[in-house]
């Protein structure tokens, strides 16, 4: 009887199912900022609760950032081959638009069905070459679905690290083949889309990928030699401060913020000087003991100096995106000290300093 009463249809408010959380949109917002290049790499990939997605993006806007870079994994959207489930990217893009933010989408992470050619375990970054077309189809489906809403798409991430190849040696020619397929498929689906190459990880590891990575400067040259220049419309770059002020002179064997100039020099060398550059990851870490950490006060000073001095020095630079705005959960290690706010939405001093700068 109890069961019958409960199951009998009754009038009254309908309780939404968890996967269709009804978070009310804010009135449409506009970012107020003095520097339109301010951007953050959000990390909403594993953020399940829609209200937290909304609150994160609200705080991004309130800080004065105009743009976010967000990672939208293929493995989450196409869990079964050919079946796309867009709920999570839809949510993020909807709330970003509502807050007046521009979205740069980074695509990667391989579904299990596309990486089953090995007997042993594979990581989410393992993409067999015969599945490159499948990834390109996802990129095209994404470009088509979000045409007019997401105009910039980054293909993969830091392919000069073995980690990003699922533990195999980094391969610039292989990456160029992947980029070509993705570029062509995306442009066919949405001719207006802007495709960005995967930004390379700053590293001085020798070429060949035998030590876990491949020098980013050499790797970019290898990509150009393989013809990659024809398959990206704009350039994504990663560069970090690594414990040093942003003004420190660049050098091929040194890691510092101005390594971006060496990357730009290579672009110019290969005739790509007219392409816009997007710094999609940058920043300083204020962990008290990490070898490349700085103090919190230094982190604030260096970050603001970076925005100031690049304004005149790098006219080709479109955005400077700080890694990372917030993690959904702590890593419990030094990467937590890259963020601008805590998983619990506590604002760090660096957030408040950037907000003040953007006023």
């Amino acid at each position, binding site marked *: 009887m109890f069961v019958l009463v409960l199951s009998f249809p009754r009038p009254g408010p309908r309780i939404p199912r968890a996967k269709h959380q009804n978070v009310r949109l804010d009135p449409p917002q506009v970012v107020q900022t003095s520097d339109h290049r301010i951007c953050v790499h959000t990390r909403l990939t594993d953020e399940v609760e829609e209200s937290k997605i909304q609150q994160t993006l609200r705080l991004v806007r309130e800080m004065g950032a105009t743009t976010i870079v967000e990672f939208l994994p293929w493995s989450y959207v196409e869990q079964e081959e050919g079946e796309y489930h867009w709920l999570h990217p839809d949510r993020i893009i909807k709330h970003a638009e509502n807050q007046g933010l521009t979205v740069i989408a980074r695509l990667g992470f391989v579904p299990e069905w596309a990486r089953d050619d090995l007997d*042993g375990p594979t990581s989410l970054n393992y993409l067999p070459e015969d599945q490159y077309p499948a990834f390109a189809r996802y990129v095209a489906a994404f470009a088509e679905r979000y045409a007019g809403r997401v105009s910039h798409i980054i293909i993969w991430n830091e392919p000069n690290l073995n980690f990003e190849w699922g533990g195999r040696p980094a391969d610039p020619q292989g990456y160029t083949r992947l980029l070509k397929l993705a570029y062509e498929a995306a442009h066919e689906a949405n001719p207006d889309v802007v495709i960005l190459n995967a930004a390379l990880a700053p590293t001085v590891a020798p070429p060949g990928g035998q030590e876990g990575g491949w020098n980013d400067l050499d790797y970019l040259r290898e990509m150009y030699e393989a013809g990659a220049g024809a398959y990206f419309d704009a350039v994504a770059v990663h560069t970090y401060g690594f414990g040093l002020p942003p003004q420190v002179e660049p050098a091929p064997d040194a890691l510092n913020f101005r390594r971006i100039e060496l990357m730009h020099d290579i672009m110019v060398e290969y005739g790509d000087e007219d392409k816009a550059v997007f710094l999609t990851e940058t920043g300083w870490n204020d962990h*008290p003991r990490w070898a490349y950490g700085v*103090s919190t006060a230094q982190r604030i000073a260096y970050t603001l100096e970076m925005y100031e001095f690049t304004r005149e020095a790098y006219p080709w630079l479109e955005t400077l995106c700080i890694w990372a705005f917030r993690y959904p959960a702590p890593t419990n290690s030094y990467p937590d000290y890259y963020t601008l706010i805590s998983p619990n939405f506590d604002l760090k001093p660096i957030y408040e300093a950037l907000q003040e700068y953007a006023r």
Partner: protein
Amino acid sequence: MKPFKSMLAKRQTLIVAASVVTAVVLGAVIWMVLFRDDGPPDPAWEKIQREKQLVVAIDPSYPPFAQYGDPVPVGIDADLAQAIADEWGVEVHFSWQGYDGLYDSLLLRHVDIIISAIRSDPLRTDLIYYTQPYLDAGQVFVGIENAPQDFMAVEQDDVIAVEFASDGAIAAQQHELRQVIETQSSAEAIQMVLDGNADYALVDRISAGEFANQVVISGPVVSDLYSIAIRRENWRLARNVEETLLKFKNNGTLDEIVTTWLGYFPEP
């Protein structure tokens, strides 16, 4: 009647015999389940024994736990890995990783274990087994003659020096300590105590260790426990690591390693 009695006796004998056999089999099964040193195969442990090599993932950007050295990383984690390998009579091979690569290298079976100042992560425990902690690097109070062993022992008018925006500063705020001075670094916070400008500093244990011969250091008042990570399927390897860690705690090996790098061994 006699044949019937005889049949009955035979049947009773059979029942007794069957019961005894059943009890023996059952006992053996219970013994096997509870006490036998056997289980599913552990390929990682077998490989270590066969190849006489323990492969350890380590992030050499985190002194004093691990930092670059030639040809191998040096620090508490590097020494601990070497000591475990020595104890097992095998060579240690370090796989140098950034933080992002540590868990992937373990799950892809490129390494046997991670020893890299990592904390147990509840989100990973379906695949990863974390050993008992080998060190607590959490927040400690530092004073000249004494140091409070918990937040309750801090007097209202005690002046506490903390590094700006550090975990210590956050803990001081959470525990509503009233007299807090913020400095640019943990070293400066401790210097405030040495100069008589603060009663205590609240800093991480590692930073405190640099002043160990000048100050009194409390036990951790906020924990930061570091463990070794192993794939959950490698139960025999995990058991051997646990046993070795326990032995190192009891025979002073861990004490010696930590003291070498911290200048003191933090009491629990």
